[in-house]
């Protein structure tokens, strides 16, 4: 029989992991919802977040809390430029959905190999944002995990408010729902796309900086989260923000519970079984097809 503290810890671990899946998946679903394309370079943007934090801390000797915002800003700009330079030219062409997928695959492969060539294949250590643990009622929690969970909640709530309340958020949603009508309102969809790509990349990079101290930094660190994020967005419904968050937590918790009850070899199997079960009942995912 599993004791309560262990169960509780695993649930918290699931929430922590789930919150990061939710961040990565929100970025993916944001791009699908707005631009109707898939971004296969998303995992590499996550990886760049991890490396960014590593360089910020190890080479520029910044405190982690200072390095993270700088990394996010740099990645926002980088991603916006990638969109402008490589993806935007594909827009409006008859084969653009396939074209854009191939372009993002290419970006992903390039970035991964760039990192391998110039930064090496070693697993790099990154310090915790807040080290140490706290315990109450026989339950021990690492501060870093509490940081991750609260960070995810704050960022997702802020992102939601951005979408609901600001001029930019309304413009983004309008573009996602009807690009021609949005143009008639005076919205430049090309600028919205650039910013969308930048925000999406920053969400992935933020998850990369948060998880880097736990999983260490290397050029291939993005492929796992990318696959998980795809599972999450398909489970939650492509393009749905609420689906990405709920799906993230579902996958995170089911992973950590299957590790506890069945052993770690089962967790991916459980994830996919869950995905298949949901798709059999709701082919478009939990919140698929809803506008935001």
């Amino acid at each position, binding site marked *: 029989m599993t004791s309560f503290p262990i169960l509780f810890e695993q649930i918290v671990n699931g929430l922590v992991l789930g919150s990061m899946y939710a961040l990565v998946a929100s970025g993916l679903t944001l791009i699908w919802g707005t631009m109707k394309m898939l971004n296969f370079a998303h995992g590499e943007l996550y990886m760049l977040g991890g490396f960014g934090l590593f360089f910020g801390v190890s080479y520029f000797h910044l405190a982690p809390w200072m390095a993270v915002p700088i990394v996010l800003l740099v990645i926002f700009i980088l991603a916006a430029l990638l969109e402008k330079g490589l993806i935007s030219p594909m827009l409006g062409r008859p084969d653009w959905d396939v074209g854009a997928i191939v372009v993002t695959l290419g970006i992903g492969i390039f970035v991964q190999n760039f990192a391998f060539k110039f930064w090496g294949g070693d697993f790099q250590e990154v310090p915790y944002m807040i080290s140490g643990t706290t315990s109450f009622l026989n339950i021990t929690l690492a501060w870093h995990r509490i940081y991750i969970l609260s960070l995810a909640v704050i960022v997702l709530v802020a992102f939601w408010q951005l979408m609901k309340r600001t001029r930019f958020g*309304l413009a983004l949603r309008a573009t996602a729902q*009807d690009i021609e009508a949005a143009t008639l309102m005076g919205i430049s969809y090309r600028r919205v796309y650039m910013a969308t790509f930048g925000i999406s990349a920053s969400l992935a990079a933020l998850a990369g900086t948060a998880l880097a101290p736990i999983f260490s930094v290397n050029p291939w660190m993005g492929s796992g989260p990318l696959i998980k994020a795809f599972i999450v967005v398909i489970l939650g419904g492509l393009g749905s923000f609420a689906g990405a968050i709920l799906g993230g937590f579902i996958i995170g918790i089911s992973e950590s519970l299957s590790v506890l009850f069945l052993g770690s070899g089962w967790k991916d199997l459980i994830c996919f079984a869950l995905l298949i079960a949901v798709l059999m009942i709701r082919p478009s995912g939990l919140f698929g097809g809803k506008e935001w």
Partner: protein
Amino acid sequence: MLKINNLQVYYGDAHALWDINLQVRRGEICTLVGANGGGKTTLLKAVCGLLPIREGSVLFDDSDLLAFKAEERVSLGLSMCPEGRKIFPGMTVEENLAIGAYTKRAWKKRQSMMKQFYDLFPRLKERRKQPGGTLSGGERQMLAIARALMSEPKMLILDEPSLGLAPNTVESVMEAVQKINGNGVTILLVEQNVNVSLQISQRGYVIESGRIVMSDRSEMLLSNPHIKQAYLGL
């Protein structure tokens, strides 16, 4: 206020509009009528920049519209209420109106503008927290008109506002159009409903198969035998 000279428009390689000459004068309601597939919506899309123009010129308030991108034309004071309303379905009535005031100048005034349109269309106020996708056809048309006016345009282009509406709803939409015109907004009304649109407008153009075939004062068009026969079924 709007001057279209010798406009040619193509869909790919297909010539869609020939030698269009059309003028809308400041302060008037001008109407463009014609049957389905005659080129009305094509012409409006070209004016708003949603379709490329190969030849001819479009002047708005003496500035060359073709020098501006589609999204920049709104801030010049030209606003279009598109065919089929194109309400943002997942955004509430309030959000739909707010995004209508997207231009920098209008954004600051959006609250007072919104209040003004809630007075004009009380139904919208009742439904302000409802998603646009749940509104009836008439409510959507009101919302689309109000949204187009949120940018404080000098000129409003209305594409088929009566489409799919019940006769008494058409009447109240047309009353609203006249009221808006009374507040100083120049209007280009594009309609299949020839009778209604010629009644509230001062001048009209008739477009058939991509060409302007007739233009005159509205009451002259209403009594024209060709119009009577082809459009009014008299």
